């Protein structure tokens, strides 16, 4: 997938998020509120997909933005986008929570069957802010093979190592390693426009 001008243009709002983080680092509560309005659907969605529990996902969301408030001064935009940083924070905290439960909740819903609808009342600002980026990522995920996507998503959303993924999917370890490795390499190529577009 080549980077198109329209794609880059549509991501022009991204530097604004880095500017928001700088204002948060300077102690502006209104900047944190704006950041929340523009990105909380991502943070909450990642936590919810990992935990399959709305209340727990909301607790994680509070923790993530509190951490952002505390550590905004440490954010280095040259090392990654705000969206990626928030997603990583949400995932890490949610997986910590998942592991801390005495018995992991049975995730009866197959990942492919988890269909969540976007709340029609959701902030248009937030939707416009992330929807283009989301579309690019979802398109990239659709361009790797089904098997690669499944292995990567299981590792990402369930916090599993490659041997645990192999066990869960009933595939040989070598096969899973290959799927994850080749899938991630391909994703890196496909998502390059995001890095170019956002710095």
């Amino acid at each position, binding site marked *: 997938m080549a980077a198109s001008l329209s794609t880059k243009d549509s991501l022009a709002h991204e530097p604004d998020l880095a500017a928001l983080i700088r204002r948060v680092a300077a102690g502006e509560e209104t900047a944190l509120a704006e950041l929340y309005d523009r990105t909380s659907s991502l943070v909450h969605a990642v936590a919810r997909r990992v935990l399959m529990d709305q209340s727990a996902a909301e607790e994680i969301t509070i923790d993530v*933005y509190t951490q952002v408030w505390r550590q905004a001064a440490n954010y280095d935009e040259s090392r990654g986008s705000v969206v990626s940083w928030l997603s990583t924070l949400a995932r890490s905290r949610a997986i910590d929570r998942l592991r801390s439960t005495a018995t992991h909740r049975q995730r009866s819903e197959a990942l492919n069957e988890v269909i969540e609808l976007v709340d029609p009342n959701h902030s248009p600002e937030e939707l416009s802010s992330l929807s283009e980026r989301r579309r690019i990522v979802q398109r990239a995920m659709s361009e790797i093979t089904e098997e690669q996507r499944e292995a*990567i998503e299981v*590792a990402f959303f369930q916090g599993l190592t490659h041997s645990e993924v192999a066990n869960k999917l009933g595939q040989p370890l070598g096969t899973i390693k290959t799927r994850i490795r080749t899938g991630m390499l391909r994703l890196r190529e496909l998502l390059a426009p995001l890095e170019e577009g956002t710095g």
Partner: protein
Amino acid sequence: MKHDRTTQEISGLASMAALGALEHDEWSAFKAHLDEGCEVCRREFEAFQEVTGEIGLVAPAIPARPKVRDQVLESIRLTPQDHRVVRIDHFIRRSSPAAGSRVARWGAIAAMLILTFAAVLLFVQSQRELRRLQTQTFELQKQLERQREVLRALASPDHITIKLTGQGPASEARAQIVWDRQAGRWVMEAHNLPQLSHQQTFQLWFVTKDAKVSAGTFMADGSGSGFLATGVPKELTDIAAAAVSIEPAGGAPQPSGAICLLGATS
């Protein structure tokens, strides 16, 4: 052994490390390699960390309930920031010389220049002093907020104190956690911590019989003191100890670096 160029093997390893898919021993070996200073592998790892973060966008947007926004804003009001940039806008007023005779005019210009120079000097000095006082005020506010956190926890009718002692290379370090069991909150103050590089952070862990769960990351200030206030997950009913380890910036899913503080809950 440091690498001088990227290979498919390096990219594969870095991609799985960033995804968190390596086994514990594989991750430890890879992290040790990064700590040796291999820039090629570090760049690959950071590039794949960015890709990994983007995967979160696969999850369809789901807003949290409106009350969560209020809770976030309430939470940050109680949370001190690690650092704060104090911005001061400089403003210099320009003056024009008074009219008069040529000599008087030049004299007035010279006097004005001297006065302007003196005023600028005074202004710069006062700005420096203002900046110093603002920084000092901020530090005092931060300390006050932290002490309030500690006092709130100590005032709880159901609290215990956990003493943490320095381990290994951080044997001089010490810390205390006040655990407000009623509110489900840990408030930790640590001192004599070693200085870390920008690529490292301290990470606090809830230690149970079966697991080590991250309680959050923190940095030490110039005097080696650190602070962290964090919620205790309700599911953790058997916390036996608290530990602080040194981890890569951003924290790790499981302790992978040196333990520098350790203390039992009883």
